[in-house]
């Protein structure tokens, strides 16, 4: 990896600006399209909207030029495009629901988007080197678990549609699990980079499996227990699947032992099976998954989403010309189905490709990262986005049973948006570090690296 060159590699910032303006153009076009289709007029505040949109995103671009010159140039344009399209669809669904200016969900989402971008910029200012996060491994664990379990608290904990995932303070509703995702990824990365040798090298071989020692099973049993706890207590299959999948993935990257994946998946399958046998709400989800149109289907949620997607067909109805509001949770859990209806198969293919590209850039960052912690953190964050898209879109399209998760950057909801912008900021920070040429790195890197972070990693730089 460490290649000394005599010329400066491209920073990619100009590419980023061009792509960013392209993304902004697409979003503004979609905005005008919705205005024309639903209200038969070009939005009156188009100039102002465009100005603010360009201002905020270009400002972020300038922050990158200043604070993370070598960051991956694709991350910001993709996040901007997805966030912008989400805003347009949420506004379009506001129109359909007849919501007035004062109660627009899109209005709140605009504020959350701005806050998300500001926080992401703040992350780039505050965290000058992602390796410093390693110092907070166990604090991240405590914070992550606390956030996850916060909805279980009396008073502030709050259940919606049967899932206890929210806390409500001073009128603001927040889904702490979204942020817990980041804290726990930091913890997984920090913990595993320190213990990976013990986990990967010690143990007995059994058939083709390298079995871990009993005491090394501790962490995976803890993660499993936590996932099952979430599944049972908060009635949230999606988060449970997300956390466990995330943990197993990072564990695998850290140890390179397939045995961990097999043990992990077996444990999860067993837990899920028992939960299915015992809990009615899990059975309901599975029944709906197998037969969404059945006469005894307890809900037509899945069926309505399928009808919406089917209605869109290959080319879609066109933005503003379908009936996505006939589906439940059209601007949150089902926003991807709303896009499928109005943009058609072609449109959502493109959107899935955007996500795939986002994850690919994240994994690419992980490969480029020069030390284990950065690799694990980047891989974990990137995979969490991919897994979340898989869980939510897979739920709508009946690849797996439906679970209520947000679609990254698209769904209405502040906590999700902020969490995803912070993830992008962290990926930008790691990629900046990874792509920075050695000469500059040495010059810039006057900070004390985290202990052990720069030590040679066995198998780390293959």
């Amino acid at each position, binding site marked *: 990896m460490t290649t000394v060159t005599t010329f400066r590699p491209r920073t990619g910032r100009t590419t980023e600006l061009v792509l960013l303006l392209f993304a902004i153009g697409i979003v503004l076009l979609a905005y005008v399209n919705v205005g024309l289709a639903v209200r038969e007029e070009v939005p009156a505040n188009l100039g102002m909207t465009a100005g603010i949109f360009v201002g905020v995103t270009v400002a972020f671009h300038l922050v990158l030029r200043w604070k993370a010159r070598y960051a991956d140039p694709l991350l910001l344009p993709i996040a901007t495009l997805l966030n912008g399209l989400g805003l347009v669809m949420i506004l379009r669904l506001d129109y359909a629901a007849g919501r007035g200016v004062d109660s627009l969900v899109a209005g709140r989402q605009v504020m959350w988007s701005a806050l998300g971008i500001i926080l992401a910029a703040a992350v780039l200012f505050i965290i000058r080197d992602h390796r410093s996060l390693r110092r907070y491994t166990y604090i991240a664990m405590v914070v992550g678990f606390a956030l996850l379990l916060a909805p279980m608290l009396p008073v502030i904990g709050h259940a919606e549609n049967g899932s206890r995932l929210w806390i409500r303070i001073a009128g603001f509703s927040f889904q702490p699990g979204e942020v817990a995702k980041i804290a726990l990824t930091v913890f997984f990365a920090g913990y595993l980079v320190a213990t990976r040798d013990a986990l990967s090298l010690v143990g007995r071989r059994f058939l083709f499996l390298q079995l871990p020692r009993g005491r090394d099973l501790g962490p995976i049993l803890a993660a499993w227990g936590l996932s099952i706890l979430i599944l049972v207590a908060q009635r949230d299959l999606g988060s449970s699947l997300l956390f466990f999948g995330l943990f197993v*993935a990072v564990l*695998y*990257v*850290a140890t*390179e032992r397939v045995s961990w994946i097999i043990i992990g998946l077996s444990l999860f399958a067993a837990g899920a099976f028992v939960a299915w046998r015992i809990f009615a709400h899990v059975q309901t989800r599975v029944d709906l998954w197998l037969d969404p*149109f059945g006469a005894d289907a307890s809900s037509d949620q899945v*069926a309505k989403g*399928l*009808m*919406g*997607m*089917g*209605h*869109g*067909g*290959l080319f879609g109805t*066109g933005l503003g010309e*379908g*009936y996505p509001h*006939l589906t439940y949770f059209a601007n949150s859990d089902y926003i991807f189905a709303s896009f*499928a209806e109005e943009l*058609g*198969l072609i449109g*959502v*293919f493109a959107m*899935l490709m955007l*996500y*795939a590209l986002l*994850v*690919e850039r994240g*994994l690419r960052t*992980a*490969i480029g990262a020069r030390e*284990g912690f950065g*690799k*694990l953190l980047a*891989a974990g964050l990137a*995979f969490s986005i*991919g*897994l979340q*898209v*898989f869980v939510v*879109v*897979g739920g709508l*399209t*009946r*690849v797996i049973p439906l679970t209520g998760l947000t679609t990254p950057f698209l769904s209405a909801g502040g906590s999700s948006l902020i969490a995803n912008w912070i993830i992008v900021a962290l990926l930008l920070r790691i990629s900046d570090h990874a792509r920075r040429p050695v000469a500059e790195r040495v010059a810039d890197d006057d900070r004390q690296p985290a202990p052990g972070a720069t030590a040679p*990693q066995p*198998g*780390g*730089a*293959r």
Partner: protein
Amino acid sequence: MNSPIRKLAVVVSLMFAALLVAITWIQFFQADTLRETAGNRRTLLQEYGRERGAILVDGTPIAESEPTDNDLRWMRTYSQGQRYSHVSGYYSFTYGPGPGLERSSNALLAGSDSSLFYRRLPDILIGREPTGATLELTIDADVQRAADEALGDRRGAVVALDPSTGAILALVSHPTYDPNSLSSHNLNAVQQAYEQLSTDESRPLTNRATGGDLYPPGSVFKLVVAAAALESNEFDPDSELPSPLRYTLPGTETSIPNFGGSSCSGEDTTTLFDSVRVSCNTSFGWLANELGAETLNQQAEAFGFGQSLQVPLPVTASRYPVDADDAQVGLTGIGQYDVRVTPMQVAMVSAGIANGGQVMTPYLVETVRDKDLSEIDTTKAQEFNDAISETTAQQLTEMMVAVVESGSGSRAAVPGVQVAGKTGTAEFGTSGAAHAWFTGFAPADDPNIAVAVVVESATDDWTGETGGVVAAPIAQQVLEAGVNR
């Protein structure tokens, strides 16, 4: 650690590939099935969102779409809802297109019919909502009004045809309903109206003229029996048939009497001509057994029995029982036992006789027009079947003229016009209650209207209402309205 990251990337690719396959399955391969899923409001909303074609009678819309300010954008209105309810049907947001043309010609009215594709291509390309096609009906407003008013409050049906083309001139079924009550945008009121209509024991939503209800034809079926006899070449109008006071059904001790227990001719025999004229039961019971079930069934099928039609309203197939024993065959000779007909089928029998033996296929839509009134399609008259020879038709016509001039159907007589007809009084159940029938055509020498009328018994008991008393006067008004059209 790069190798497992690469493998993780492969796993991510597989996950996304699974999503792409699943979404392709839903949006491409399953899309049509999903669109047609029962209760898919999107399909309905999309159809509601475009201007639906009008239905015209004599150039006046009986159903049309009017723009509204609300989400549904168009509202269907029916200018003479009660009179045309069974022709038009209804178009309800909640319940979809109801019976009638709204359902059976839905694709044309909605503009989604494949025959409209090339006309719609410019609309599709510029993204304009296509409009539906307009239907011009064959209904004659005067004949329809006469039929509607003559039937009045009685339950029953009237069908009038143009014998030479098969064009449907009137189609009335009572009781009726107001389609406006189901097409309203007050969805709660619509639901209430629908629940009330669909649970009403008089079944106003049933189209008695074309199906839903099959009636015993009683003596109007004697036209088919007489036709079979004449076609067999073993009988002519002057053939003497046994006409005892009671005819004992073969193999039983049961016997059937004549209407009112009287003799048909005062003698033990009577001619075929007079048998039809006075509607003699005993001679027709004997004649049915003489001809046999096979011959009768063939003749009935030649007139259209056993075949359902789309005119485009669905017409239920009328039926002649194939499993009858000798005694039951005797009963079929007077249109009893399991013979079951639609008024449309009875009208086709009369129209076939009126048209020299040639039955024409009935049709309701004259012309399909585009929004700009340019013609898309015109229905051409089509021969359904040569049911009987011209000679047989002529002989039957003469008998039917006698029915009106000096027989059981005198109340169908139209001043100055020679009317041909046949009455029927069809018993059902065991209490003696009977539906009243009349079928015929006019003018007898050059027919331009054929009609079938059925009036359901108002009670479960015999009240003396025969076809000649109740149904013939209704037919008379319909024929009078149609004869000079």
